[in-house]
């Protein structure tokens, strides 16, 4: 350590002039306030110029020193000066690196400190904090110093090994991508941040330690030095990536019993359900399964349902979107329980399945296409949709796809256009248009598609032409749905209390159910026996009898079923005897049924 300090002291003494230059440069932000355009904004100018100048110079010095502190001596055959002294290789690197980092950080601090102190408030405003930007810059200086040393060694050795370095670098980036990819697909932003930060720290440590190996084994010859660096660097990075990959692979390998469920969705009939949740060990990674509530069998889905997933009415067919292959995040492929369909579409596409599960409609930008799911055959397609608009799509019949196209504008009225794609005739035509102020998922449609309810405008309109049939006087609507028979249910707020209000097909009020002491009520689905399923306060399921307007069943600490992740504008209408897969307060799966009991049973036992 003493030898390292001697080397560091020597380097710092040699570069001491830099500190004087930086002290002079620290006055530049103050001088900048004298410029004609800067008057009256002195504090901001000092903060901006001081921040930029210190960051650019600090980083520049770090890169320069990192690239030259050892490598210049090696390239100019001067490292023998150190190797003919009683100095160990680690001492040379530690001393030189400590000096390089100290000089870079000191130069940064010398320039930044006066402006940060003089314009403290403006500095905090302009650079989003007092200490944070300084810490980030300091960290960047350290990282760049080590990185530029490695890059410089590789480049200045002019060794044929450079080609291998290039290949290894590509392989490392590819491996990093493969590690990050499942986390990105599983919406695991926190997990990705933890893993990538750990990899980053490990790689910086490798970059910091590798030169010790480089000097100990390569000594004064730059090519041998490069080879020695490579021998440490790439295996170490490979080990780091293997460990990270192993951890990620372990973390994302979870079973349905491991997860704390956050989403459940199910078809109107059948025993299948999509379950998405996070295992405690997986941080925020979302694992998704299709489970059969009757048998308890499950199958892993490659993506969470918000990538796009839709059941057929009988629940026998499920289609979902999953990235293509191992590398790509460009395209997605339609998958079913039988495997990949071979239908590859752009990432931004939306899908809707026909009620019988035989066909799938895909919207992407200007295009609407219908494929036969079993064969992947393109049955019909049409261009001409507005790529900037939102589209809600459903199969009116197996041969007709209806599209509602509208801009999501909260204040300005914009047109809502209605199209129908005739699959047999392979033609699309506009069947209606009306102006409206829309909100997200503004349109809901009756079971036969004859009528629609437009939220925001609060009108019942013809489902094909968009012509107004009736208007509903309701304000502050948070959730709404046109029911199967064309009647309307909506949740609006009166004096801060949510009310479920129902209307008949012509917009005449029928029932008003208040939910006092509750913050929110959402319409979750409809049951064939004239019942409506509500999610109350995000944690209680209520079943309302539409005929009487009374709450028939109430299940506390239960969530589910939940809406589908598709663009189908129709409210899900469950079979009268359907059992619902839901989540209890602990995130565990339970099953309940509309049978007048406030009870539920567990679906899977925890490990």
């Amino acid at each position, binding site marked *: 350590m003493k*030898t390292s300090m*001697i080397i560091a002291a*020597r380097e710092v*003494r*040699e570069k001491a002039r830099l500190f004087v230059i930086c002290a002079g440069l620290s006055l530049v932000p103050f001088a900048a306030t004298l410029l004609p355009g800067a008057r009256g904004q002195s504090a901001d100018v000092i903060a901006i110029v001081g921040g930029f100048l210190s960051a650019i110079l600090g980083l520049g010095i770090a890169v320069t020193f990192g690239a030259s502190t050892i490598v210049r*001596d090696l390239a100019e*055959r*001067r*490292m*023998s*000066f150190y*190797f*003919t*002294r*009683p*100095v*160990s*290789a680690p*001492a040379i690197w530690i001393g030189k690196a400590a000096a390089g980092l100290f000089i870079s950080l000191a130069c940064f601090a010398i320039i930044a400190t006066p402006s940060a102190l003089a314009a403290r408030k403006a500095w905090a405003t302009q650079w989003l904090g007092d200490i944070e930007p300084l810490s980030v810059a300091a960290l960047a200086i350290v990282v760049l110093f080590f990185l530029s040393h490695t890059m410089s060694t590789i480049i200045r050795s002019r060794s044929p090994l450079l080609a291998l370095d290039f290949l290894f670098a590509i392989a490392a980036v590819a491996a990093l991508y493969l590690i990050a990819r499942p986390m990105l697909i599983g919406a695991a932003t926190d997990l990705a941040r933890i893993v990538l930060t750990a990899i980053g720290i490990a790689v910086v440590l490798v970059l910091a330690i590798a030169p010790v190996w480089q000097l100990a*084994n390569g*000594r*004064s*010859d730059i*090519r*041998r030095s490069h080879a020695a660096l490579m021998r440490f660097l790439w295996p170490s990075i490979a080990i780091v990536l293997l460990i990270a990959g192993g951890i990620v692979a372990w973390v994302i390998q979870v079973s349905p019993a491991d997860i704390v469920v956050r989403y459940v969705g199910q078809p109107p009939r059948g025993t299948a359900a999509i379950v998405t949740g996070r295992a405690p060990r997986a941080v925020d990674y979302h694992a998704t399964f299709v489970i059969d509530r009757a048998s308890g069998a499950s199958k892993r889905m490659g993506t969470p349902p918000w990538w796009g997933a839709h059941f057929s009415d009988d629940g026998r067919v499920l289609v979902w979107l999953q990235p293509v292959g191992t590398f790509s995040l460009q395209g997605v492929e339609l998958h079913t329980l039988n495997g990949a369909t071979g239908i590859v579409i752009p990432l931004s596409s939306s899908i809707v399945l026909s009620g019988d599960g035989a066909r799938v409609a895909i919207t992407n930008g200007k295009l609407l296409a219908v494929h036969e799911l079993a064969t992947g055959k393109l049955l019909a397609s049409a261009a001409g949709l507005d790529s900037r608009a939102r589209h809600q799509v459903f199969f009116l019949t197996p041969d007709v796809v209806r599209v509602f196209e509208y801009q999501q504008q909260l204040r300005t009225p914009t047109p809502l256009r209605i199209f129908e794609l005739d699959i047999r005739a392979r033609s699309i035509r506009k069947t209606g248009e009306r102006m409206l102020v829309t909100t997200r998922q503004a349109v809901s449609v009756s079971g036969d598609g004859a009528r629609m309810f437009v939220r925001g405008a609060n009108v019942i309109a013809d489902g094909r032409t968009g012509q107004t049939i009736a208007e509903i006087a309701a304000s502050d609507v948070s959730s709404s749905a046109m029911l199967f028979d064309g009647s309307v249910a909506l949740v609006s707020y009166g004096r801060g209390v949510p009310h479920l209000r129902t209307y008949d097909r012509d917009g005449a009020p029928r029932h008003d159910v208040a939910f006092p002491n509750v913050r929110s009520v959402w319409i979750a689905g409809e049951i064939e026996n004239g019942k409506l399923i509500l999610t109350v306060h995000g944690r209680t399921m209520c079943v309302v009898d539409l005929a009487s307007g009374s709450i028939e069943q109430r299940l506390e600490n239960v969530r589910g079923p939940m809406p589908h992740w598709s663009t189908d504008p129709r409210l899900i209408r469950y079979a009268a005897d359907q059992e619902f897969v839901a989540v209890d307060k602990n995130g565990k799966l339970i099953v309940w049924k509309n049978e007048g009991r406030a009870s539920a049973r567990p679906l899977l036992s925890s490990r």
Partner: protein
Amino acid sequence: MTAIAVEDVSVRYGRRTAVDGVTLNVPTGAVYALLGRNGAGKSSLVRALLGQLQPKRGKAALFGEDVWRHRARLMQRVGVVAEEADAPPEMRVRDLGWFASKLYANWGQGSFDQRIARFGIARAARFGELSKGQKKQVALALALATAPELLVLDDPTLGLDVVARKSLFEEVIADMADRGITVFITTHDLGAIESIADHVGVLKDGKLVLDEPLETLRGRFRRIRFAGPASELAMNAASTRAWGSGTEAIVTNFDEDAFETLRARSAAEISTLTLEEIFVAVAGEERA
């Protein structure tokens, strides 16, 4: 006691072999001159025996310890003047002294200052601003001020003027030798080293083709001119050429009896060789 022991050392740069299976031993207190033409592998061998370069094969040891493994510790006992001036160019001469003084247990600041002053080098001058000769002087001053047990000089006269060169050989190396300090030197200045060296090695194309005490060497090599053809010579000849109607030969294993027999048969005369002549005879042919 052996100061330097090199055992079957080979150094390679890619496919090129710079040093090929060299074995040599330098006893403590000896002055060993390693000779060779440019590119013969002298500097590579020096770097290997200083632990700066790991041999592809073999082992180099200083004072009985593997130099590759124990380089840092061994350098406390070794003074080195490298072939090329290697001190940081921005460093001032006085800072070089300060730096070395912190690293060596036996640092002699007085010796360093005295030598620098003697050659008129300003202490405040930056190393990069010095002439080639001055850089060598500073390097030599640094090496000598460490009170080394072994002094390794890789072509130390390169760039030195005549006075400095004379001083190096007659004062410095001779003084070292007198004090029992081992000196290992590579040089092209054969005339000057001849009077000081007691061991000589010659590298040719990476191979050590000659390694023995100078006195033995001088005893082995003779120039013989005789009236007959080369076939009459009953000794090994490094080279032969026509000399008038007779032959001139440089013999590498001079034998008094064989020479007397030759002289009895034909007119023959004999002369000793300088180190330079021996070197030319051993390493002088042009490379293929």
